[in-house]
């Protein structure tokens, strides 16, 4: 668990992007509850935008308009097909703590490292 924010700094129904160790998370406060999901859209790998949720309380990706539930990360509107990962959150003494989760086991290679090569999984039916 990593401290990611002060509860008092979280506005109702607004998405905030925070860093939790190796992970970048999107956190949303609803009443006295705070939930955290992975901050990168599962569709085109752009970071979700901080700010207001949609009128129906969803997270909308700024790039292609995919929508996700802030509660369980589920896809509510295409083109995304994969849910955002949910991260456990705890409130302790006015601070918000979040679980960064495991470092991805099959971490994708970093293209800015010398000699890095893409993995077959990135290529779909090209590979």
């Amino acid at each position: 668990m990593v401290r990611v924010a002060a509860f008092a700094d979280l506005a109702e129904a607004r998405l905030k992007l925070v860093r939790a160790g190796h992970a970048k998370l999107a956190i949303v406060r609803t009443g006295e509850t705070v939930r955290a999901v992975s901050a990168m859209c599962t569709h085109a790998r752009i970071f979700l935008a901080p700010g207001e949720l949609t009128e129906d309380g969803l997270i909308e990706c700024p790039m292609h308009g995919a929508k996700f539930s802030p509660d369980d990360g589920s896809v509510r509107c295409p083109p995304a097909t994969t849910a955002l990962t949910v991260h456990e959150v705890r409130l302790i003494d006015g601070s918000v703590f979040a679980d960064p989760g495991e470092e991805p086991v099959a971490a994708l290679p970093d293209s800015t490292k010398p000699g890095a090569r893409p993995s077959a999984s990135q290529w779909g039916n090209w590979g």
Partner: protein
Amino acid sequence: MTSSTMTDTTDFAALVDEERGHISRRIYADPQVYDAEQEKLFRRAWCFLAHESEVPNPGDYVERQLAGERILVIHGKDGVIRAFLNSCRHRGMRLCRADKGNATFLRCPYHGWSYSSEGELVSVFAEELYHEDNLDKADLGLIPVTQVETYKGFIFGSWSAETPALTEYLGDMRFYLDILVARTPGGVEVVGPPQCWEVHTNWKFATDNFTGDNFHLYTAHGSVAELGMLPPDPMALSFGNLIQAHKGHVLHIVPGPPIPQAEYFGVPMELRPLIEDTLSPQQADLAKGHAFSVGTVFPNLSFMQVMVQGDLYSAPTPFLSFRIWQPTGPTTTKVWSWLMVEKEASPEYRKATYEAYVRTFGPSGIFEQDDMENWEECTRMNTGAVAQRYNLHHGMALHVPADRDFPGPGNAWPGSYGERTQLCFYGEWKRWLTMEEPWA
């Protein structure tokens, strides 16, 4: 030389800040920039004119443009390929009015002055009416392009006698060009005449894109991506290297999926032993390890060696295209695009690579149309007086250090998503607009 400042005293040097990655929008729209480019860049730099395979036989010619002036590239009966201003010495008439052809003599359509394929004035109408002191035919040959040189079949010209020799100008870009155009004993040849079309864009938007911009693929070509004709992971094409081969000559070189078909840029298996035998081991390793390369020979000869799906159901197929972006005004560009293929290519591969190219690039290609729409709208927006108060941003991956162990000459930065090569291009552009001897 005109001055290096504009009428509002802005120095051309202030329009490009390659350290911070800031580019003035004025360079894409201002008539003063256009005029300065014509004088200081396009009338001095080595510009691509034609490929030898376009004029294989004596008498073969093509009409091209160099710094906005029409020229003829002609294969003389003596076997030498020359380039001349396509203008009769009598009244200046456009001597040859066909795009290409074969001629024993070039006869002016206006009064009939005629020239040999070597450019000499050989016949003047009613010649007996000239006093011999008033007609020195030896001095009235076609006006030659000041310098003409050929590299691996690529014919270049320059209107400047001061510009250094072509091999020096290309420098270490030759190492990378050879991987694309001289990787088999026969090298490459054109597949038919070039496609030509006009785009309402400043030429530098096209060049900027062809310095190696893989990060526009999933937005500009979003429909192609949605249909599944790009790899599903938008970072799949972010690998490889951005390379500054020499001064403003830049490229990227990008690996494909980890399968044998995507090695050697995806060319057919029967050509691969030829590549191994022809290139140096270092070059052959780069060819083996990569599937895509896009780049630009400064200022405006760009190339793309890519694998594409011509439609939803066909396998990725490679093609090699060279293109030039010729400014015809501050906001207009004429594109010339050639498909090239190894001379040793089989008829089947020629057909497949031709189809892959035509479906995806050229004026009706599904990728090229997306690009042109973006370049045209970028150009329109950047003509605005208010818009021009704000610089454009070229800052991606500038913090990534160069890979000193990269197995090729020049500077290489790992990762093909980044704006290093654009900034190398604009920095060189600035040097040509502001320096007396930018090549020094």
